[in-house]
Structure formats: structure tokens, C-alpha cells
């Protein structure tokens, strides 16, 4: 890997890592279920950028784009099902705060 490519990769890698930090922090510290989903979305943005940057650097953009499209499809399915679960939780407990979900505690 030449120095210009390494420099490009390290700059994009910094952006990816900072986005991942924001997403992880949101998931770990939020108590609102919808905000946790938003944190998950932020996390996937970082991973998506990493896939595209990796494909751009190794010269396999077609494969990287195929993987990114697959990831977007999976992301939509995960979010839709998670939103359904959040709505069910809200319907039965009246809140989306994880601290109030005591009745499902084992």
C-alpha cells in the first residue's frame, strides 16, 4: 500500500471510528428504546462508510456496493421489526423507558 493510499485510509478510518464511538455511546447510555434504535442507525452509518472506503482502496467497488446494498436491506428489516417491538412495549407498559420495564424481569 503506497503512502497516499495509507493516508487516505487513515483519514477515513478516523471518521469511521468517531462515528462508531457516537453510536456505541448512544446505545450504551440511552434509556429510551427509540433513541437506542437511533444509536444503532448511527453505528451502521460508520460501518457502511468503512465498507465503501475499503472497497474504494482495494479497487473492488462493485463488491463493496453489493455488500452495502445488502446491509441497507438488512438494516431496514431490523429497524422495522424493532419499531414493532417498541410499539408493543409502549402499548403494554405505557412507556418506552427501559428503566420502567420491570414487569418482564425474570
Amino acid at each position: 500500500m503506497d503512502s497516499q493510499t495509507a493516508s487516505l485510509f487513515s483519514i477515513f478510518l478516523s471518521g469511521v471510528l468517531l462515528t462508531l464511538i457516537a453510536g456505541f455511546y448512544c446505545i450504551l447510555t440511552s434509556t429510551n428504546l427509540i433513541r437506542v434504535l437511533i444509536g444503532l442507525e448511527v453505528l451502521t452509518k460508520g460501518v457502511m462508510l468503512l465498507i465503501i472506503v475499503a472497497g474504494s482502496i482495494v479497487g473492488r467497488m462493485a463488491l463493496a456496493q453489493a455488500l452495502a446494498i445488502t446491509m441497507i436491506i438488512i438494516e431496514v428489516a431490523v429497524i422495522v421489526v424493532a419499531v414493532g417491538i417498541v410499539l408493543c412495549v409502549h402499548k403494554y407498559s405505557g412507556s418506552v423507558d427501559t428503566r420502567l420495564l420491570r414487569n418482564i424481569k425474570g
Partner: protein
Amino acid sequence: MNNLDVMLLVALVASAVITVMTARLLHSAIALALTSAVLTILMFRLNAPLAGVFELSVCAGLIPAILISTISLTRRLTPEALETRRKELLRRFWYLPVIVLLAGIALALVRVPLDFPAPPPAAVGSVREVLWNLRHLDLVGQIVILLGGAFGVAVLVKEAKDG
């Protein structure tokens, strides 16, 4: 790689931090759409237009719409509760910009060794060829996941007939 790419990366990280730190969930969902839009511009600049179109239409359009619909279906906070939540969020999330800033400085100072060998040249050139010829099992998986997602939502959200 030029200054515009660096500015876009900074905008991506900043919009991600704003998405996480905003007190109102509605503003957070809108900031998420902005993050996706910035990522789309980066994808176009990295020569990934097809993934960029998917990102713009699905992640910047559909997913924030789903999240906003969910927010509208849940209970709205009173002004007092919103103020309490804002203070709580500020107390909980004020570390985040500091952590991101420190991590950014550390990443700028520390050089990660990136001397791995270049891979062999790609056998196929277009996304269509990759999806239909090389990774056709992915398509089957995507169809199954979409059907599973639709079935899951139908089961979760349907009203009980005898309830």
C-alpha cells in the same frame, strides 16, 4: 481526497453527535436523515453511486419516516418532563463530544501501520454482475429477511381479534 472530503467527514461526525445528543427525538430523527445525506455525498465522491442512491432513498428517507411515525404513536412529553429529560441527557451525554474530540486528536497523532499487501485485481466489474453472478445467495437472503421483517411486523402490530 481533498479538503471537501475532510469537511464532509467532519460534517458526518458532527451530525452523528448531534443526532445522539439532541433532546427531542423528532429532531434526532431529522439529524439522522442529515447524517445519511452526508454519507450519501461521501459515497458518490468515493465512486459508489448505486449504494449512494440506496442510502439516500432508504436510510435518509424511509427509516427517518418510520422513526417519526413511531415517535408520533408514542406518548408526547409534557414541557416539564421535556426539561427534566434535557437536563438528564446533558448530564449523560456531555462526555460524548469530549470523547470524540480526544479520539480525533489521538487518531490524528497516532499513525496506524497500514502496510498490508494489495489484493489481486477484481474478477468482475459491475454491481449487477456481482449481485447476480457472484453473490446470488445474498439476494435470496435479502428476500428472506424482507419477508421475515414483514411477517414480524404483521405479527407484532396486529390487533388481537378476541381482545
